[in-house]
C-alpha cells in the first residue's frame, strides 16, 4: 500500500515537473529575474550600509586625507558622494521594483499557459473516451476538475516552484557574499541554514501523518453543518430538528479542537523556523557588536551583514507559506494524472462506412467497472429502414445498448458490427458521421438558433429554415425579431421544453443522419408537441433506421420491431401484435 502510494506520488511529482515545458520558458525567465532581484538586494543592502557608514563616520576617513584644514571642500565631497550613492541606491530600488514586477508577470503568465494547455489536453482525452467514461466519473466532477481543479495548479507553478528555486539561489548568494568579508557571521548563517529544512521536513512528516489520519474526520465535520441545513426539512418531518441544535454546537466545537490539533503542529514548525531565524539574527547582531567593539570588523560590513540576515531566511519562510499551494496542486494533479495517463486512442483513417447499413450485435456483453452485467448475451439486428423501439424498466440496459450502437461502449465479449465491420473506439468517429442523436432532455447550446441547428457557424440559411419548418418551429421563429440569428441564450432560456425538443428534431432534419437514435422525452410535453414529434419521427423512419428508447407504450405500437429488455437481457422481440400473441412481459404491461 505504502509502496504503491510512494510510486503514485512520484508519478504525480514527475508529471507536475514535466508540465513546466508548456510555459515555454516563461517560468524559467520569471525565476531568473527573481534570482537577479535577490542578487541586487545584496548590492542594495551593501550600498545602504555604506551610505549610513558614510554619514555617521565622515571624519574618520576624511581626517586622514584632509587633516581638517579645508572644511568647505570636505563638506562638498561628502555631500557629493552621499548624493552619488543615494542616486545609485534609488536606481537599484527602481530596478528591483521592475524586476519584481516582471518576475511576477512572467510566472503568472507561465502558469496560465500551462493550465490552458492541460485543459485542452484533458478535454481532448475526455472526448476520446466518450460518454461511457464521463458518466462513470460523473460529469459534474469532471467539469469541476476541468475548471477549478486545473486552476488550483496556478499557485503551484507561479508560487511554489519559484520559491523552491529562490531557496537554493538567494541564501547561497548571501553566503558567498558574506564569507570573504566576515567568516564568523557567515558560519552562523551556514550552521543554522540546513537546520531550517531539516526541522521543516521532520515536523512536516509528523503533520502529514496527522493530517492523513484526521483528514476524513475533518472533511466530515466541516461538511456536517451544511449537511444538516440541507436536510433540515427531513429533520423536521421526524420532529428531530430541535434535537440537532445541540449536535451542531458539539460537532462545531469538536471540529475546532481537531483542527487546532493539526494546526498546533503547523504552528510549531513555523515556531521553530522563526525561532532559528530570530536567534541567529540576534546572535549575528550581538557578536558583530562585540567584534566592532574590539575593532575586529568594519562598521560598514557589520551593518551589511545585519541587513542581510533577515533576507537570508526569507525564502525559507516563503516556502512555509507556499506549502498549501503545493498540497493543493498535488491533490488536483492526482486526478489529472489518472485521466491523462490512460492509453491514447489511435484513430484509423481508412475504415469508412457506407450506406446502406446493417448493424448487428452478436452475443454482446458489457459490465460497468465494479458492477454486475449491464448487458448479457444480446443479439439484435437493425438491418433496414424502420422504427425500432427499445423498452424496459430503468436500469434494464437500454442506455447501454444505445451507447453500444453508437460505439461509445465496446462490448467486453461478443461484438457490435456495422456491415460486418467491428465497431471500435478507433473507427467510432467515422461511424458517428452517419448517426443522429436526440437525448431525453434536449440540449441547447449557447449561441444563435441557427448555430444550435447546424452546430457550426457555417450554416446554410435555407436548410436551417427547412429543418425548422419540418420540426414545426417555423411559426415560433417568425415571432423572433432576429429570426434564425436570435440568440437562445444559456440553458435554453427563452425556449420551453417542447420547443427545445423540437429544436433537437430540427437538428436531425438538418443533418439527415442515416441512423437516428433517440431517447424519448419523459417530461410532459403538451399534446400538440408530442403529436408533431411522433409524426415526424415516424415519417423519418420510412427512409432511415430509427432506434427509439420508448417510455410510453402507445408510441411503440407501430414499430417495426420492439425489443424488450429486462436486467440486461433481451426477453422478447417482435411487433406489437406478435408480442401480444406471445403473451409475455409486454402483453402483461399492456393489459395492466
Amino acid at each position: 500500500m505504502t509502496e504503491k502510494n510512494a510510486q503514485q506520488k512520484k508519478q504525480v511529482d514527475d508529471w507536475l515537473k514535466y508540465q513546466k515545458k508548456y510555459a515555454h520558458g516563461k517560468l524559467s525567465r520569471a525565476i531568473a529575474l527573481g534570482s537577479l532581484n535577490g542578487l541586487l538586494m545584496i548590492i542594495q543592502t551593501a550600498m545602504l550600509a555604506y551610505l549610513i557608514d558614510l554619514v555617521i563616520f565622515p571624519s574618520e576617513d576624511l581626517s586622514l586625507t584632509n587633516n581638517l584644514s579645508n572644511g568647505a571642500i570636505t563638506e562638498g565631497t561628502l555631500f557629493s558622494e552621499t548624493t552619488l550613492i543615494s542616486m545609485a541606491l534609488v536606481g537599484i530600488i527602481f530596478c528591483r521594483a521592475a524586476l519584481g514586477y516582471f518576475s511576477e508577470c512572467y510566472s503568472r503568465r507561465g502558469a496560465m499557459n500551462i493550465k490552458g494547455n492541460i485543459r485542452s489536453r484533458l478535454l481532448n482525452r475526455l472526448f476520446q473516451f466518450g460518454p461511457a467514461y464521463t458518466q462513470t466519473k460523473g460529469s459534474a466532477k469532471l467539469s469541476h476538475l476541468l475548471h477549478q481543479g486545473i486552476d488550483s495548479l496556478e499557485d503551484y507553478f507561479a508560487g511554489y516552484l519559484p520559491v523552491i528555486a529562490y531557496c537554493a539561489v538567494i541564501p547561497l548568494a548571501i553566503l558567498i557574499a558574506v564569507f570573504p568579508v566576515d567568516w564568523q557571521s557567515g558560519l552562523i548563517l551556514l550552521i543554522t541554514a540546513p537546520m531550517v529544512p531539516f526541522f521543516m521536513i521532520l515536523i512536516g512528516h509528523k503533520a502529514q501523518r496527522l493530517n492523513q489520519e484526521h483528514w476524513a474526520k475533518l472533511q466530515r465535520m466541516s461538511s456536517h453543518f451544511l449537511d444538516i441545513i440541507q436536510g433540515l426539512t427531513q429533520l423536521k418531518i421526524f420532529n428531530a430538528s430541535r434535537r440537532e441544535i445541540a449536535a451542531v454546537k458539539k460537532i462545531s466545537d469538536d471540529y475546532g479542537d481537531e483542527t487546532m490539533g493539526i494546526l498546533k503542529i503547523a504552528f510549531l514548525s513555523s515556531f521553530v523556523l522563526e525561532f532559528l531565524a530570530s536567534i541567529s539574527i540576534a546572535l549575528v547582531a550581538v557578536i558583530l557588536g562585540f567584534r566592532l567593539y574590539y575593532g575586529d570588523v568594519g562598521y560598514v560590513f557589520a551593518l551589511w551583514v545585519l541587513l542581510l540576515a533577515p533576507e537570508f531566511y526569507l525564502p525559507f519562510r516563503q516556502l512555509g507559506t507556499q506549502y498549501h499551494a503545493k498540497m493543493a496542486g498535488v491533490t488536483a494533479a492526482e486526478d489529472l494524472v489518472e485521466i491523462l495517463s490512460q492509453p491514447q486512442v489511435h484513430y484509423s483513417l481508412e475504415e469508412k462506412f457506407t450506406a446502406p447499413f446493417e448493424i448487428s450485435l452478436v452475443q454482446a456483453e458489457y459490465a460497468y467497472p465494479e458492477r454486475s452485467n449491464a448487458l448479457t448475451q444480446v443479439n439484435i439486428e437493425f438491418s433496414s429502414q424502420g422504427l425500432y423501439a427499445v423498452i424496459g424498466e430503468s436500469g434494464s440496459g437500454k442506455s447501454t445498448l444505445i451507447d453500444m450502437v453508437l460505439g461509445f461502449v465496446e462490448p467486453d465479449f461478443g461484438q457490435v458490427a456495422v456491415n460486418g465491420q467491428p465497431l471500435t473506439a478507433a473507427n467510432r468517429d467515422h461511424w458517428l458521421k452517419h448517426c443522429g442523436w436526440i437525448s431525453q432532455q434536449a440540449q441547447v447550446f449557447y449561441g444563435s438558433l441557427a448555430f444550435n441547428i447546424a452546430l457550426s457557424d457555417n450554416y446554410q440559411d435555407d436548410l436551417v429554415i427547412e429543418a425548422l419548418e419540418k420540426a414545426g418551429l417555423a411559426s415560433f421563429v417568425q415571432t423572433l425579431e432576429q429570426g434564425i440569428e436570435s440568440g437562445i441564450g444559456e440553458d435554453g432560456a427563452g425556449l420551453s421544453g417542447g420547443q427545445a425538443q423540437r429544436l433537437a428534431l430540427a437538428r436531425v432534419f438538418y443533418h439527415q443522419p442515416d441512423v437516428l437514435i433517440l431517447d424519448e422525452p419523459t417530461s410532459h410535453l403538451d399534446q400538440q408537441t408530442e403529436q408533431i414529434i411522433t409524426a415526424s419521427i415516424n415519417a423519418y423512419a420510412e427512409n432511415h433506421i430509427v432506434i427509439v428508447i420508448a417510455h410510453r407504450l402507445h408510441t411503440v405500437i407501430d414499430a417495426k420491431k420492439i425489443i424488450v429488455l429486462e436486467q440486461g437481457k433481451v426477453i422478447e422481440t417482435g411487433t406489437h401484435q406478435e408480442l401480444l400473441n406471445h403473451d409475455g412481459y409486454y402483453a402483461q404491461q399492456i393489459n395492466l
Partner: protein
Amino acid sequence: MKVFIRLIKLLKPQLPLMLLGALLSVITVLANISLLAVSGWFITLMAIAGTTGITVNYFTPAAIIRFLAIVRTAGRYAERMLTHRATFNALAYLRHYFYQQLEPLLPYYRINLRSGDLLARLQQDIDNLDNFYLRVLLPIVVALISVPIVCYALALFSSTIAWVMLAALLIVGLIFPAISYLASTALSKEKSHLESHLTEELVNGIGAIKTLLVYQVNISYQRSIASITKQYYGVRYRLVKINARLSAITFLLIHLSALACLLLLLPQLSTGEVDSKSLVAVVLLVLVSFETVSSLPLALQLLPQSLASAQRLFAIIDKEIPTDIGVETVTHGDIQFENFTFSYPESKTPSLLDINFSIKAGEKVAVIGASGAGKSTLVNLLMGFWPTGDALSSTECASTADISNTTTKSNKGSISIAQCDLNLIARESLRQHIALMSQQGHVFEASISDNLRLAKHDATQDEMRKVCQLVNLIDFIDGLPNGFDTWLGTSGSGLSGGQAQRLQIAQLLLRSASVLILDEPTKGLDRHNEEQIMSNILAHVKQQQQSLLVITHKPLMLEKMDKIIVMEQGKIVAQGEHSQLVNSNDYYQKLLNYF
C-alpha cells in the same frame, strides 16, 4: 455599518479572546520591528565605542535584543494559537446561531436548499464569516493600534519623519489598495463573468458530450473552450499586472521612504539633534515598520465581501418566523379536506382548487397525477409546513399583512383531523401523528443506524433490522464490512439511488405515526423490489393499523388501494376504487399506459 455592528455584537462572547489575540499580535509585530532597530542601534553604539575607546554598557542592549527575539518568536506562536482558537470558537458559535435561526423558517419559505446554487452560496457566506476575525478584523485592529505607536516612537526622534511615515503607511495600507480596487473593478466583473461562462460551457459540454460527438462538433467545441480560456486568462493576467504593479509601487515606497528618512535626518545629525545611533535605528525601523499594514490591503478587500455575506445570511434569518398557534394534540381520527382552495402567496393561480376528500383511519389512499398537479402541495400542507388561510390572518405583524390579505382572499375551506382544524394542532403533535417520506428526502452524512435513529431516536437493533428487512435492504447491510455502522454520504460509502430510497422507506416504517405518507416511494426501484416492498408496506400498515397515503404517478398496486384520487392542475378530477376508474376515467386509463 449596521451589519458590521450586528456582526460584532454576535461575536461578543468571543471578544475577550479575540482582543487578547489582537494584543498579542500587536506585541509580536512591535517586537519584530524593534528587534532590527535595536540591533542597528546596538552595533552602531559598539562601533562608536570601539573607535573612540569609551566603555559603554553593552549588556543592556544585548539583553534587549535577545529578549525581543524571544518575544517575537514566542509571541507569534501564542498569537497564532490564540487567534485560531478564537476563530474556531466564533465558528462554532455562529453555526449554532444560524442553525437556531434557520430551524423555524424551513421549509416555510420554500428556500430550496437542495438547489446547489443556494447551498453553495450559503457555504461561501458561512466560510467568509469563518474568516472574518482572522483575515479582516485582526489586521485592522493591529494596524489601528500599532501604526500610532510606531509613529509616536518616530516622533521622539523627529516629528517630520513621524508625519512622513504616517503618510507613507496610510498610502500603503489604504490609498494604494483603494486605487487598485478602483482600477480593477471593471476587470473583476469581466473576470467573474468569464469564469461563470467557462463553468457553464464546461458543464453543458460535458453533459452534452454525446450530442457533441454524434454531430462531430467536438473539435469546434474544444476550440471554443480554448478561446474562452484564453479570454479568461487574458483578463486574469491584466488583473495580475495591476496587482504586480501595486506591489512594485509599494516596494518602491518602502525603500525610498527609508532613504528619504536617512537624508531628512542628515541636517539634524550635523547639528547634533539626533545622534548617529538613533539615525541607524530610525532608518531600520522605517524599513520594517510597513509590516504593521502588510495585511491591511487584503483585509480591506475582504471586508465588503464579509459584510455582504453577513447581510445575505441576516436577510435569510430575519424573515418572519411563522407563528405556531396550535396547542391541540391529536392521536387518531379521520383527515378531512373540505372545499379546500389554496395558493402560495407569490403565485396568482391557486395550487389547489376546491379539494374534497377524506382519509379515514386505517384507509389506504393513492393520489395520482402528473407532476405539477398539486400532489406535493397537498402533502406540504398536511405536514403543517404552510399555514392555511386562518393561521396567517391571525398574525398581527405588518410585514405579513399583505400576504395574509392575499391568502385569505383566495384560501378557502379547511383541512381537519378528527374535526379539529389543522392550524389548531401543535406542529410537534401533528408530525407525531403523520409521518412522511418526502421526495426531497435527505440521507445524512452519518452511519446507517444514525440515519435510522433520526426517525426514532430510541430504535433498537431489532426494530432497525425488521424495517430493513421489509425494504429488502438487510442483505445489503449485512454484506457491508461495518454493517449498520457504515458511514453514508459524500465522504462515506455511498448508496445507490434505489438503496437511498429504500432507506427512507425504512425510516418511515420506524415512525409510530397513525398516518404514513409516501411521496413517489418506488422512484429508482426495479420492478422486483417495487412490488415486494409495496406489499410489505401494505402488510405493515395493516398490522400497525396505520392509514396510508401514497402519492405516485406510476400505476402501482392501485387495485390494492381503498381509494384513488386523480389530480390534474390542482383539482381532483376523479376519485374512487381502481375497478371504477379503470372503466370510466380517460386520464386514468392513459396513465396506465406509462411505464
